[in-house]
């Protein structure tokens, strides 16, 4: 369709990707880094794929890019949830700034009981 619109969408996507990777470097612990991964980088890549759709219009490449978006959403959310849960059960400490932890009791009782 329109090259200009495509370039604009891809640029917005790259800006969000830069912010997400900056968060990956700067934030203090695993859980906060996952926040930047699931939000900034996923939305940035979705924006890039929308840019591809703008370039090609509704032909085979554009539709494929459009259907990549829900795929990316579901895989990134489920992956982030699994990683956060795995890290907590593995025993990765929360950052020093953490205010409140209501999940501790459940994990402690489950580990003492011997069931996961």
């Amino acid at each position, binding site marked *: 369709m329109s090259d200009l619109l495509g370039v604009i969408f891809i640029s917005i996507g790259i800006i969000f990707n830069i912010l997400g990777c900056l968060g990956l470097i700067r934030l203090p612990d695993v859980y906060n880094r996952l926040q930047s991964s699931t939000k900034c980088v996923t939305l940035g890549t979705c924006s890039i794929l929308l840019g591809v759709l703008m370039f090609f219009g509704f032909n085979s490449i554009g*539709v494929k890019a459009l259907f990549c978006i829900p795929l990316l959403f579901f895989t990134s959310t489920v992956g982030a949830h699994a990683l956060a849960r795995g890290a907590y059960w593995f025993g990765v400490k929360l950052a020093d700034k953490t205010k409140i932890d209501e999940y501790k009791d459940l994990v402690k009782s489950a580990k003492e009981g011997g069931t996961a």
Partner: protein
Amino acid sequence: MKYLVYTLIAFGFWLLFTFNLSIQNIIVGLVISILTVVFLGSYFVADVGKLGQPLRYYWFIVYVFIFAWECLKANLDVAYRILQVNMPIEPGIVKVKTVLKTDVARATLANSITMTPGTITIDMKDDTLFVHWIYVPSGNPTEYTHQVVGRFEKYIKKIFE
């Protein structure tokens, strides 16, 4: 009946992904979707009867737009926190309760929470969700529940229950 619907859905996705209406492509797609449903159909838990009710599709479209708006706000929020020099984050894990009953609705709620302002669902036990929040506001638990799940719960209830 149930397996027929699954096969049709899988075949539709095949056609959209390959985008090609030649006869060989259609035959290969049918064989692959039937094989997929034979092997994996028993793991798919959605209630097929609800697919025939048009009001649910209307609420689904409304929900997609609300979700996209919330998602955009979430991104700007997280980006704002990352760009600050001293990073104003106060992370924590809070408990919230949900009123949804079916598995599909709860899974959708958990995925929606993961994509919105600074929250990740860590675990779910019966009707309690454990949510990691990048900025926990000071307040009482009912207020948390309203802020985390209140925006989506009513729409998801209309779509899936």
